[in-house]
Structures are given as structure tokens and as C-alpha cells.
């Protein structure tokens, strides 16, 4: 008898992997693919000094309000953000580190792919190129953007199995795949958790090798 791989875990146990000062990636673009259940439990933890990697800040509002967040690495922090949230971010001294959206996703992908970083022309001549090392390849100049490793990723899928294989829908894929790849520990929530073999190998959006914990949501 071999060891049975079973990544299923309770919501609270999975979230207990997160500690003070950690770097935590949260998937989703708008509401699509946002790990609502995982984040609702994380919000209740009394943690501090977290670095959040998330495309947007508006959905992190409760954590910002309760002083859990030190820094947000993002591309579109204030999309849909209220003036109250803007004020809270300022008052709490939360650092906003802006990256172009494609650079954000690719630096996550690089981190999960054993690469040291990304060479990109996006940002050259703008403030997004400031302070970056310039590398010349085939006569073209590129910015060197270092890989973005995270300690924990919280992601959303439609269907999961106990190996962590995931199926996602529509535009809910977004950052979820690259964040899982970049994380030391990735936690996936899914409303449906099925038996091994029920997810077609032809239709698996993220192979379970990138997923450490699977949480079934109500």
C-alpha cells in the first residue's frame, strides 16, 4: 500500500498556515476567481505586517481597516476603491508597490518556474522603469524585473480533486494559476471536490503539483 495523497483540509486549518509578516498572494480579477471563503477566514485572524500580492486593493479592505496589511504589491489598487479605503491606506501607512499587470503576473510565473526574473520592455521611459537594472539582449534594452516569490497563495477554482488538480471557469483563471505556482504553500478553494479521475486530464487548468491544500467551500 502506497501513501495516499490527500490535500483536502478544513478552511480554518488551511488558513492557519499564514503567520505575521508573511507575503500572501490573493487570486482574482474583480469578483471573478476571488477566493471569498479563504479570505473571509483570513480577515478574522489578528495578524500584522502582511505583504499582500493582489491585483486590486478594494477587496482587501477589511484587512487594511484592521491593520493587518503593511504592503500591497498590485497593478490596479484603486479600481472600485472608496475614498474611505484610500484614506485608510494613507493613514495606516500601507505601502503600495505598483507593477504593470503583465509584469506582476509574469514575475509570479517566473518565481514558480525556477527563473530569477523577467526581461520586459514594458515600463521603459516611465516611472515603472526607475531604479531597474537594464539588460541588453539582441540589441534591445529590457528592464530586469526580479521573480516574485510568495509564501502563501489563496486561490479559487470551480472544481478540485484530492490531488489538487483544478478546473476553473471563464475569466476566473486570471492570477490564480501563476500565484499557485509562485507560492511555497498554495491553498485552493472550490465549491465542488470530486473523486480522482473525474477531472478530465484534457481539461485540467492547473495540475495538482502546484497546489498544496484543497478546501471545499459551502
Amino acid at each position, binding site marked *: 500500500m502506497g501513501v495516499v495523497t490527500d490535500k483536502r483540509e478544513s478552511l480554518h486549518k488551511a488558513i492557519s498556515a499564514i503567520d505575521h509578516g508573511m507575503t500572501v498572494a490573493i487570486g482574482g480579477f474583480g469578483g471573478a476567481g476571488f477566493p471569498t471563503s479563504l479570505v473571509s477566514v483570513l480577515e478574522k485572524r489578528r495578524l500584522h505586517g502582511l505583504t499582500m500580492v493582489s491585483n486590486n486593493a478594494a477587496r482587501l479592505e477589511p484587512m487594511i481597516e484592521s491593520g493587518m496589511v503593511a504592503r500591497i504589491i498590485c497593478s490596479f489598487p484603486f479600481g472600485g476603491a472608496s475614498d474611505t479605503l484610500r484614506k485608510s491606506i494613507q493613514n495606516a501607512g500601507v505601502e503600495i508597490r505598483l507593477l*504593470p499587470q*503583465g509584469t506582476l503576473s509574469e514575475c509570479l510565473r517566473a518565481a514558480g518556474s525556477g527563473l530569477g526574473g523577467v526581461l520586459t520592455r514594458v515600463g521603459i521611459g516611465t516611472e515603472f522603469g526607475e531604479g531597474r537594472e537594464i539588460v541588453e539582449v539582441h540589441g534591445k534594452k529590457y528592464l530586469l524585473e526580479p521573480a516574485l516569490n510568495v509564501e502563501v497563495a489563496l486561490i479559487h477554482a470551480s472544481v478540485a480533486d484530492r490531488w489538487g488538480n483544478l478546473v476553473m*471557469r471563464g475569466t476566473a483563471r486570471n492570477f*490564480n494559476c501563476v500565484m499557485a505556482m509562485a507560492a511555497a504553500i498554495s491553498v485552493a478553494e472550490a465549491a465542488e471536490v470530486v473523486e480522482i479521475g473525474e477531472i478530465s486530464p484534457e481539461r485540467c487548468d492547473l495540475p495538482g503539483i502546484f497546489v498544496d491544500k484543497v478546501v471545499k467551500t459551502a
Partner: protein
Amino acid sequence: MAWSRDEIARRIASDIPDGWTVNIGVGIPTLVPRYIPQGREVVFHSENGILGMVPLREDESPDPEVIDAGKNAVSIRFGGSFFDSSVSFAMIRGGHIDLGIVGALQVSQNGDLSNWSTNERMIGGIGGAADVCSGVKQLWVAMMHTAENGTRKLLTDCTFPLTAVSVVCRVYSDLAVLERDERKWKVVTLSPGTDLLEVRNATGFPIDI
């Protein structure tokens, strides 16, 4: 009569050649897909992971997991596909997209674009704008020619933080369609009843005929 936002979108839509793949940003650009002439096959790309994005039909119920870059419910046409952010931005940066249509706060004579922040206030953030503007083969801007208070938005140099440098090919405004070649700009079309002098007065750089 100056063109309305919808008329600007209709004008842009009529200029997109058959078979092009087009990324559209927020603002006036989101109106463009509804004005593509019947029978013309234009494929719309949305940075959050759709090729073949189409407006939601009236009889179609919105799917919270199928949204555009502005977080509005949209739909997908036959032949379309969904993918994750890294693949989406590979399409954008990799030169696979023919045209980007974006809004602007300012455009410079050199074709520089500012569209994410005034010096006082970040609008939403940079989002995918820097990637789109530097990655697509052609970039068209859809904008009101001047700000609501009459301030010029087409300037010798942008005064707001830049999104990308020397990228704007055309400007579609309420007053005119303008085209850039290096630092030279010419009028392609004037809106009905607008004369060249009016456009020149509303623009901070020289315009040829």
C-alpha cells in the same frame, strides 16, 4: 456638431479592418464592440483572459465569472477562448494583438500617453495599460479633445505620469481624428461643423492638414 462618445466609438469601429484582433480598455473604448459593422470579423481581447469577447445579449443572464477589464458582465462568441493572466499578457507583449484602443488623460506630440494618474490622484492604478500600450502593433486613443474645464489634453509634453513612450498612432476625439507620423500630426477627419482652427486652438502641438 462635435461627436458624442458613442459617435467616437462608431467612428473607431468603422475603421477597424476585417480580421484584426483588438484589445479594448475602459471608458469610450468599451463602446466600440457594439458598433462593428455587420459581417466584419473583429476579435476582441480582454486582458483578464478572453479572446472573442462580445457584449452581453439582452436575453442573456450575466455570469459573474465572465467579465471584462472594467468588471462588467460580458459574453464570448463562437471561436473564442478563455485563458489565464500570463497567457493573456503574452499575447499583449508578444505582438500578437493588432490594435489597442485606450482612453487618455494626455497625449504628447511624440505620441507619449498618460492615462493612469494625475499628479494629485492615481485613477485606479496602472493595471494592464503599460503592457497594452507598449505591446500592441498599433495604439489608437479615444478621448474628449479637451478636459471638462477646457484644459488641453493634447500637449507638447505630458505633465502627468507616463503610461508608455511614443506609442499613440491615432487620436479619435469629439472634434477630429488625428494621425501621427513621428512628431508630425495631421487631420484625418473633422467632426461635422468643426473647423481646423477650432481643433488647432484645442491642441497644444502643431497640426498639418
